[in-house]
């Protein structure tokens, strides 16, 4: 496919949901039948576009051979100046590369079941609901596609508005509180991120050796790392400059981290999440868990790591590593204690996102690609779990675990999907969760940097897998097996999954198997840009002052510190 076509595909990805949202909003609340169909059509078209764009990225000559990308430059880019500021300009700069391509596909994919699951459950203010849902799609896709740091932030913040209305209007009984808490919490965090964004841009501008005002991410990353590499070549001569840049990076990392850590969420900052998840309508939960939490991880991957590599090694690894492990255990522990199934799945998200972050801050290729894969896995399996919980709620209007028992006999298909998705979430071999978790843990075991005992962190994190199996299996046992127990419900007969619900779940289940059996295409396309991040992190590790101390087993290059990619990728 020629690049121009793919370029248009990306623009269409942002434009179509927005236009469809506007159309739906203007259709008025009365045409309840047509509105979901229009929304479904728009999301399906977007899915096609996303798959098409991913396909054309995968078929590029570089991606096909798997040769490492030189730097951060995206494919199929579109650049338009939005705001000229002196020598630089804020641009509308979007593109596709190995880091965002699968997240874009995941977003487009999860939108389809989100529309399907809302079909019958949303009956009030239908046009507004679908309008916000489609606007949210544009915002989410925008975050992933943006290659201008301000544009990234713009979309990052814009995701708040539709979700605020989705939770606040169509949520559960505590929806207003949940929506406000979600909004304020994330906004406060992301405003600090905003300062970090401006800080790193200005640091590049005021540094006389760079002296370039740019908001384009590839250029920023390139300049920062070129500069750091030059300083690092001769640490004795540039000791002062190096210290100054380490100081800048420290603050930039901390500022950027705050907003993303709220979004991920890392453990002390997670308190908005259970409330928002429980109160959100099903589609809101699916997208919140499936995509919006990934935006936090993606922020770390796209901004924190490449723009503050030294701080990522010095501060990020110990801090985020600890918080991630704490999150894995704490989230799993909380999930064990829940009686509300939705809350259980929400806490399991905290635990799973801990794995994503743990893998990312292993800072090597295995960890990074595991983390990326785990993001997709979590999006698929937890998204599907929220769908299933929503379907259960539609039938019985309760989510209390103790109210259910032996549903397996009554609702065979629903139980099948529940068991299947739970197993994928636990990480059963040949299902997607397994490969992600293994890569993450391998990455962390192989961590060679200073300050942190990688194998120890990995082992403690591995306990989370056991706990994950525990809470999910006990949930399955008590609700779906054993003696039959049904909560009181209106006298209409509770039926099994209908065709619409099957259509929402089946593609996700198929993908879970596909990724579990044959993840190579995924890893190959992502791998080129993962290697770029790994190289940046590796250089930073060599620069770090405590690195020289442990040169008993000096790795020739950071890539050699871990096993070769082929070995890791085969589970």
């Amino acid at each position, binding site marked *: 496919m020629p690049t121009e076509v793919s370029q248009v595909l990306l623009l269409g990805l942002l434009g179509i949901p927005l236009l469809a949202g506007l159309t739906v909003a203007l259709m008025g609340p009365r045409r309840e039948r047509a509105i979901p169909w229009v929304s479904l059509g728009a999301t399906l078209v977007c899915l096609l576009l996303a798959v098409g764009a991913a396909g054309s990225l995968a078929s590029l000559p570089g991606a096909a051979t798997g040769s490492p990308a030189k730097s951060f430059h995206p494919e199929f880019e579109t650049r338009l*100046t*939005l*705001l*000229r*500021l*002196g*020598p630089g300009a804020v641009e509308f700069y979007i593109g596709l590369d190995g880091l965002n391509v699968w997240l874009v596909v995941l977003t487009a994919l999860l939108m389809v079941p989100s529309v399907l699951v809302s079909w019958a459950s949303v009956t009030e203010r239908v046009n507004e609901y679908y309008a916000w849902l489609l606007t949210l799609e544009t915002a989410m896709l925008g975050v992933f596609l943006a290659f201008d740091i*301000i544009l990234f*932030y*713009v*979309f990052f*913040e*814009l995701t*708040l*508005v539709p979700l*605020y*209305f989705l939770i*606040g*209007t169509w949520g559960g009984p505590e*929806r*207003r509180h949940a*929506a*406000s808490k979600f*909004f*304020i919490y994330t*906004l*406060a965090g992301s*405003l*600090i991120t*905003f*300062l970090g964004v*401006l*800080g790193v841009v*200005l640091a590049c*501008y*005021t540094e006389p050796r760079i002296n370039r*005002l740019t908001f384009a991410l590839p250029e920023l990353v390139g300049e920062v790392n070129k500069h750091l590499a030059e300083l690092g070549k001769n640490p004795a001569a540039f000791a002062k400059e190096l210290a100054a840049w380490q100081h800048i990076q420290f603050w930039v990392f901390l500022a950027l981290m705050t907003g993303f850590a709220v979004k991920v969420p890392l453990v002390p900052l997670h308190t908005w999440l259970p409330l928002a998840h429980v109160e959100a309508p099903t589609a809101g939960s699916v997208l919140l868990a499936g995509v919006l939490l990934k935006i936090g991880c993606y922020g770390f991957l796209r901004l924190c790591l490449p723009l503050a590599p030294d701080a990522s090694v010095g501060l990020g690894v110990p801090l985020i590593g600890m918080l991630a492990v704490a999150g894995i255990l704490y989230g799993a522990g909380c999930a064990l204690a829940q009686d509300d199934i939705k809350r259980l799945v929400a806490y399991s998200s905290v635990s799973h996102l801990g794995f994503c972050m743990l893998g990312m801050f292993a800072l090597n290729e295995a960890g990074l690609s595991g983390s990326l894969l785990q993001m997709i896995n979590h999006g698929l399996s937890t998204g599907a779990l929220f769908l299933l919980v929503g379907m259960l709620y539609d039938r019985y209007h309760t989510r209390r675990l103790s109210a259910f028992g032996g549903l397996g006999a009554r609702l065979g298909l629903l139980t099948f999907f529940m068991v299947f998705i739970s197993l994928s979430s636990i990480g059963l071999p040949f299902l997607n969760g397994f490969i992600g978790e293994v890569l993450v843990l391998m990455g962390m075991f192989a961590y060679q940097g200073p300050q942190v005992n990688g194998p120890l962190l990995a082992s403690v994190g591995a306990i989370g897998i056991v706990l994950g199996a525990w809470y999910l299996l006990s949930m399955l046992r008590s609700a779906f097996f054993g003696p039959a127990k049904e909560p009181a419900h209106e006298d209409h007969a509770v039926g099994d999954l209908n065709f619409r619900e099957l259509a929402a779940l089946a593609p996700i289940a198929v993908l879970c198997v596909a990724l579990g059996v044959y993840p190579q295409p995924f890893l190959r396309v992502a791998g080129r840009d993962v290697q770029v991040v790994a190289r940046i992190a590796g250089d930073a590790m060599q620069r770090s002052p405590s690195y020289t101390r442990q040169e008993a087993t000096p790795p020739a290059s950071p890539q050699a510190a871990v096993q070769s990619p082929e070995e890791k990728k085969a589970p």
Partner: protein
Amino acid sequence: VSREILEALVGVFPLVVPEAVLGLAACIFFVGGTFRTNRHLWAGLALAALALAGLGWWYTGPVPSTNPFAAPLVLDRLAFLTKGIALAAGVVLVLLSWKEVADRQAADYYACLLTIVAGLGLTGSANELVTLFLSLELVSIPTYVLLYLPRHDPAAQEAAIKYFLLSVFSSALLLFGFSYLYGLGGTTNLAALMDALTGSGPEGLPRVAQVALVMVVAGLGFRITAVPFHFYAPDVFQGTSTAGAALLSFVPKVAGFVALFRLLGLLGMDPGRLGFALGNQVPILLWILAAVTMFLGNLLALLQDRLKRLLAYSSVAHAGYMLIALAAAPNLALGGTETVPGGVEAVLFYLVAYGAMTVGVFAVVAYLDTPQYPVDTVDDLAGLSRSHPGAALLMALFLFSLIGIPLTAGFVAKLLVFLGALAVAPEHNGQLFWWLAILGVVNAAIAAWYYLRIIAAMYLRSPVRPLPQTRAWPGLAALWACAAVTLIFGIYPNWLQQAVHGVAAPPRPIAQAQRGER
């Protein structure tokens, strides 16, 4: 009369074409009001006068001053921009007040409004202490009348008296400061005065200058509602008509900030000509003002239930954000990073964005407000999205802009302010301004809470008492004008940024040549 003086007098007229048109129109209104009492007539004529003034404004364009060291009025880019803002604000305010003004008072009301617009335009042009003072009073005095005209209940009387007394007091402070300035420089011309102050050397200004500085900032602080000169705002906003509150929230702020640019010598942006802004006194004074203003405004706004009081405190808080940029302005110029917008440019951008969003909120309130169903508290807006979806959507847009959510002008304004604050070089108290930026974002997060409360009331609650449907095209037009500005400069801010860019920097060769001649 010598020829030179005559020339100088005649030469001033092309610089004040819009103001002359407006002044003439105001006179006709005052006289005509005794013959005809019809608000549609006078409001229409006011719009016509503003349009005519606008034509004059556009065709004169910015004129480089031949002798800024003697001219009482200049028409540099700042003056040109201020006049444009004043005229646009005038149009929106006429549309906004259309409904609220009684027929009998219409002529007087619109005459006062036109005078205020003219005064604001002159403030932008004033290059002399006396002219500046007169222009500021030309804004203030009609405002007293305007506050009193539409309502006669005790609350309105209290508001008018309170505003009158405090405004007179602040004018006195300003004059007191001006007298010191005259004593220091021996001239009333601002350009010459800044030159004289610069001559005192970079070590610092004489002690007396600090008295003048504090007085000037206090006098103008009243107009921009900086804490501790803000405390009239909630009562006066509450006591006056919605259009009056909209006017008070915007016009005096523009006047105050423009006057501050000129008086602090920030327009040179030429490290040699910084005038007052030399040394640390100005930045530190403004730093403290900014921090206190933001915190007090936002924290007190959290406690409000009545919309106008809430908006009054919100306008205090926004003055605080603008003060961040103003405080950073002198140091930005010293640091040589003048290509990073911040400082004066950011304040101007912020003023336009702030005007659109705050006047927009008032426009929504004015649009919905009827004598039978007054819109007074946040609860009155409950369920608005069901009864008035369009008005609710626009209100939400303005409120998101006030929070600083992207795709609105409020976001870009905050971007420029924080960019300026972070760009201050470390050797010029850079760290201090980083902290100010951090305080700024903390405040932006606090502010989100009370704006979100209104959005939540409109969208997430069911109506307490449904508001009747209203149809008034002037109110709608005002609303849409504000919404268009908010949205267009949010999505494509480049136009406005190019308009304010370089306002602070006059062509340097001219300034130097002038100094050489003297």
